[in-house]
């Protein structure tokens, strides 16, 4: 994993995140204790990723600054919720999407195959983070999205 739990907590805290809405996978899940123990924001668990987008929307309408975390498979599962919140309600949700098997060049995982095409189909701007030298891009990209009030995705290589 490119980021330790403490590193990602530091990034999110600096961004002013108030809530992390997530369903972990084996990689993102390594951050659980750090996210949970962070005094700067609350960690919210949902039962399926389709709940995460409207929950984040409610937080935003209520004046908070959430971020979603899920695996690419969860992104696929929650497509209609994404469509509704980002395009019908036009709420600038930001998310870190764990890109399953991205670091495995030989992987035939279709979750890897479809990650970028799906984001492109939704017209969502995204930043791929796949190398340690990319790490500053997470704060830069998400910070820019928040500042410009636009949705944005970090596709975080796993």
């Amino acid at each position, binding site marked *: 994993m490119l980021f330790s739990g403490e590193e990602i907590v530091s990034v999110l805290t600096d961004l002013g995140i108030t*809530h992390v809405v997530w369903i972990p996978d084996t990689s993102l899940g390594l951050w659980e204790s750090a996210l949970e123990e962070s005094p700067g924001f*609350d960690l*919210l*668990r*949902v*039962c*399926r990723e*389709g*709940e*995460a*987008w*409207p*929950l*984040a*929307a*409610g*937080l*935003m*309408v*209520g*004046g*908070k600054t*959430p971020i979603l975390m899920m695996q690419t498979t969860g992104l696929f599962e929650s497509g*209609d*919720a994404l*469509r*509704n*919140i980002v395009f*019908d*309600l*036009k*709420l600038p949700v930001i998310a870190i999407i764990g890109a399953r098997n991205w670091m495995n060049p030989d992987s035939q995982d279709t979750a890897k195959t479809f990650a970028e095409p799906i984001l492109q189909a939704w017209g969502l701007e995204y930043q791929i983070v796949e190398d340690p030298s990319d790490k500053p891009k997470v704060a830069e990209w998400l910070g820019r999205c928040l500042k410009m009030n636009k949705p944005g995705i970090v596709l975080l290589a796993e």
Partner: protein
Amino acid sequence: MDSSNSNSQAGMPLRSALSVLANARQAEDVVITNQGSSRVWPLIAQHPLDFHLNPSTMGGAIPFGVGIALAQPQREVIVLTGDGSLLMSMGSLVTVMAAGCNNLTIVLLDNNIYDVTGGQKTAASDLKNDYHGLARSVGFPTVDSFNDLAGWTEGVTRFLQSQGPRFAWLQVDPALADDMKTIQEPMDEQLSRIGHELGC
């Protein structure tokens, strides 16, 4: 217009059931509607803290309400959802409890059909669902069931004043066909209005 549907069950007239809630709702409460209720509620009540999540993703109203409730813990948030929507996101009841938002009320408007698409059966229509037991099993401290207007009218205030989060299962008739034609306030205007009312 006739609201009967061969797939539906006998219940309270929807407009009447919603009127009871509109009368009991406190001025500072947020009310979130969805699907069928988003068409009918505006015919009964117009309040700055109403939010009609339509267009929506089915099953989205409850998590949306959780978000508002967490962001605005000083307010009560009432979410109206249909049985078809709840069936698409049963886990959202668990999410409510996990989030610990005691200022949330869910009112399930159970007409036993997909009303907005023309009255088709849901997967649950021929089953004896116990939504009361479902909510109780995930830990809702207040769960109530109402299948007639007199009981709902008599019980609504006590229900809303009970320990949250709360879950009420209302058996209702399908909406009147003309009521489903309601033209809704545009989403951007709704967002602007409720954001202003919530002080955001």
